[in-house]
């Protein structure tokens, strides 16, 4: 039982928290702009690498470098929107999707160019895990889970208590009606990018801390993030966060040796879980658990 918690549930929660941060941003962007943002994964990798750069340059920890990561992902997201997505706003969703694919390739190329293809890790001191009654958990995992929970809570406050957050929800309900009501839609779109880019920078640094940094790290979790957003009901940020946690837990627990010491699913096939969840959701509950927009 302890083995299940230590080696499967805790890593599942950590991975789930990272998926949740990324999926929440995807879901917000889809809600406000009706657009599947394919560059989200590479924006995440960019955040992680900027944090790596800052932490090497200034000799600070990866945690302290998070603001630097966000300080780059936010303007990059705003620039991608201003340069590419804004002029395609009235085109078909597939056109926007493809343009974001282009942005994804550009971001990844820049990362390859500056940091090279070799996987690297954040400089991290070796610290003993926290142990309590046989329960072992790495300190960085505690921080990742707490950090994600705190971000989700702050996002909840923004969406439910602030005027700008209400405008975001209104626009995701009905963009035309929001416009008639006097909502400056361009401003709401910019705010959405700022929030999504901060969340994805956090996700990138967390993912880098949990495993390692490589240029395709974000692209590798993009599918799982979309699966989480769709599982939760796309356009519903809380649903996406919940979907992310479920998916992270499912991926890790799928390798648990439940029967005769052999893992249920070979770890190599772990990422197939996201595919399976995505397909099952689309087949049986396409609107997602929390009644999303498709």
């Amino acid at each position, binding site marked *: 039982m302890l083995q299940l918690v230590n080696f499967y549930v805790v890593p599942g929660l950590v991975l789930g928290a990272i998926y949740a941060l990324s999926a929440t941003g995807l879901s917000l962007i889809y809600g406000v702009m009706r657009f599947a943002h394919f560059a989200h994964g590479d924006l995440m990798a960019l955040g992680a690498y900027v944090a790596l750069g800052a932490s090497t340059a200034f000799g600070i920890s990866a945690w302290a470098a998070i603001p630097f990561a966000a300080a780059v992902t936010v303007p990059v997201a705003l620039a991608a929107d201003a340069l590419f997505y804004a002029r395609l706003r009235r085109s078909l969703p597939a056109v926007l999707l493809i343009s974001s694919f282009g942005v994804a390739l550009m971001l990844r190329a820049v990362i390859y160019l500056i940091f090279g293809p070799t996987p690297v890790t954040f400089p991290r001191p070796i610290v003993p895990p926290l142990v309590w009654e046989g329960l072992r958990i790495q300190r960085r995992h505690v921080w990742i889970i707490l950090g994600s929970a705190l971000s989700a809570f702050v996002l909840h406050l923004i969406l439910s208590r602030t005027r700008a957050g209400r405008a975001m929800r209104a626009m995701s309900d009905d963009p*035309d009606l929001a416009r008639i*009501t006097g*909502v400056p839609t361009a401003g709401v779109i910019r705010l959405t990018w700022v929030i999504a880019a901060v969340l994805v920078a956090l996700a990138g640094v967390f993912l880098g801390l949990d495993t390692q940094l490589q240029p395709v790290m974000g692209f590798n979790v993009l599918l799982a993030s979309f699966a989480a957003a769709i599982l939760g009901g796309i356009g519903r940020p809380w649903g996406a966060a919940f979907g992310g946690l479920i998916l992270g837990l499912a991926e890790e627990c799928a390798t648990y040796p439940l029967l005769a010491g052999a893992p249920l699913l070979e770890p190599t096939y772990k990422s197939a879980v996201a595919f399976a969840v995505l397909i099952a959701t689309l087949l049986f509950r396409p609107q997602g658990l929390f009644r999303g927009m498709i």
Partner: protein
Amino acid sequence: MALLEVRGLVGGYGETDILHGVDLDADAGEVVVVVGANGAGKSTLMKAVAGLVRIRSGRVRFAGEEIAGAASETLVLRGLAYVPQERNVFPSLTVEENLAMGAYARPAMFREGKDRALALFPDLAAKLATPAGRLSGGQRQMVAIARALMLQPRLIMLDEPTAGLSPKFCSAIFARVQEIARDGIGVLMVEQNARPALAIADRGVVLAQGRNRATAPGPALLADPDIGRLFLGG
């Protein structure tokens, strides 16, 4: 000069024009009702005034200023409110949040606007915390009208406010419309439910195929046998 003056309006969707030169006047404190067969261009006319439909030519003046082609989000601040026929509330927002959205451009007016809304539609008081998507059609229409009134507009445009409502709700909506006009707000209303709507209209406008067919006080239109036979179903 009327509060809203539409002259020779031509416009529609994509390459297809629906309106072929429509004239319309609406004044403060007046109920103006636009009737006509399906496809006559009634809703398109409102959307064009609201800036949601392409205008090819013609003038739209509101309070003396040209607004043809102005961005929809700027019209609220000029005092022009619009309630679309369908999808006229934010379903995932509560009734109170919907009202707050109505005062989005001037948050300071929220409290006072909410009091006025509840005075006009007392039934909403018990529903303030309910998501608007869970309300009945009639209640939704009330929320939509109340939301549009939050900033005390000079003119409110209602696109078929009684569509799909029970007769009881219809007469309630028409009674509220008269109250709104008595407060000095102009009401421009498109109605499928032509007879009861024209009965309260200071000005009735009959559209046919994107053109004006007749304009007269509502009761006069109702009394006209030709109009009755051609446009009001006998």
